[in-house]
């Protein structure tokens, strides 16, 4: 019998790496697929010039895992269509603005295309039953399969024993008895297996998608409620800087460090902005049209976030430039304007 071939969705986390390993052990030829959605935390950190504590760049976990597992990897770019899913998910959002169900369906549909084009037999994922409440219940897994047109063709080696037999199991391409029956959030079994196989992995696992971030979600929801629309630029900017909503409805995005200043500079040709005349300190992007009487407030906010000292501030809105003396504004005044995941008072959180 010729060797059976599987495509494995590889995030680079431990679970998907183990899925690859379990199939390799059964003699299955594996190719890894990694999806680029445009909402990747590593990409963002690198773009903002952030590094790990030791000063080295954040690594792409999927590339690292594929090299370690010695499987070919293809990075599939779905970013062009992905933002439409983020704005209008058929199956709704998770806890934040993560459209996990729609996202899985989109990735699996793409995987199906590749499977058919390149002659693979089935698809496998590192999904673990009940690990994530939104997308990993038996009902959800079934729904996702059906929507992707892959019924019976998605094997979840980590939880296979708890799920109905798939085509690869029924056909004897893989031995079901050698697959696992893991469920829930505990990672004990996976960690023991990592040790057994000598796999290095990122800890904590996953967390590559910033749509699951609470502050990102708070900004997304606030912008939608206030402005009525979300633009592709917004989807990028929600992840950067401090966001302040001014009383007029205009918004300030204030850089927190040099990396963010450089990043926001890239937007100054199409947005208003404010910064110290001498170029020191922060840069604040202005979205929308602030009221005339708010210009002083903007200058004061820039002064607050630029070494907290009085300074001359240049504000450019549309074709107009304004030069104002900024006096650092108090944090109490700024706080109600800030948009982030605020904890409820008295929740103790």
């Amino acid at each position: 019998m010729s060797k059976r071939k599987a495509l494995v969705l590889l995030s680079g986390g431990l679970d998907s790496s183990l899925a690859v390993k379990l199939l390799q052990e059964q003699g299955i030829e594996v190719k890894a697929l990694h999806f680029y959605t445009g909402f990747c935390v590593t990409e963002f950190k690198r773009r903002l010039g952030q590094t790990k504590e030791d000063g080295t760049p954040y690594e792409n976990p999927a590339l690292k895992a594929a090299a370690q597992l010695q499987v070919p990897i293809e990075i599939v770019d779905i970013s062009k269509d992905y933002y439409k899913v983020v704005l209008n998910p058929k199956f709704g959002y998770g806890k934040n603005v993560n459209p996990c169900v729609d996202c899985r369906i989109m990735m699996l549909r793409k995987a199906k295309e590749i499977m058919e084009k390149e002659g693979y037999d089935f698809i496998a994922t590192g999904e673990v039953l009940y690990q994530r409440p939104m997308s990993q219940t038996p009902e959800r897994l079934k729904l996702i399969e059906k929507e992707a047109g892959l019924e019976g063709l998605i094997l979840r080696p980590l939880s296979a024993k708890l799920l109905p037999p798939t085509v690869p199991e029924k056909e004897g391409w893989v031995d079901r008895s050698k697959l696992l029956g893991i469920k829930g959030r505990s990672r004990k079994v996976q960690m023991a297996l990592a040790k057994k196989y000598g796999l290095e992995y990122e800890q904590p696992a996953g967390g590559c998608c910033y749509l699951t971030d609470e502050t990102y979600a708070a900004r997304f929801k606030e912008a939608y409620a206030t402005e009525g629309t979300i633009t592709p630029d917004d989807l990028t900017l929600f992840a950067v800087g401090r966001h302040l909503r001014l009383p007029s409805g205009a918004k300030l995005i204030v850089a927190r460090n040099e990396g963010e200043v450089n990043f926001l500079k890239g937007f100054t040709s199409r947005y208003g902005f404010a910064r110290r005349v001498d170029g020191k300190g922060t840069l604040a992007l202005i979205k929308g049209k602030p009221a005339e009487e708010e210009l002083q407030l903007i200058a004061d906010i820039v002064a607050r976030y630029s070494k907290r000292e009085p300074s001359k501030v240049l504000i450019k809105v549309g074709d107009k430039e304004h030069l104002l003396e900024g006096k650092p504004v108090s944090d109490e005044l700024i706080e109600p304007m800030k948009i982030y995941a605020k904890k409820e008072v008295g929740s103790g959180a």
Partner: protein
Amino acid sequence: MELKEIKPDLVHDVTGTYCPVPIVELSNQIKKMREGQIIELVADDPGSVKDVPAWCKSTGQEFLGYYEEDGEYHFFVRKVK
């Protein structure tokens, strides 16, 4: 052979893009090339220094090396398959 003496069949500039876009670009270009041809990928994402060799290792392409100049990284990869 010194890297700077290599005459690549193709030079592809991905400066201004960050992980994983440089790898997506590299992969797309390699698909269009013939076996034995060499691509020079120019990137400014410091993380590419790890990503490009890792991608080559996993996909079986030959990583010839890289040099850094003025904040840009020049990677040389030979298409093997």
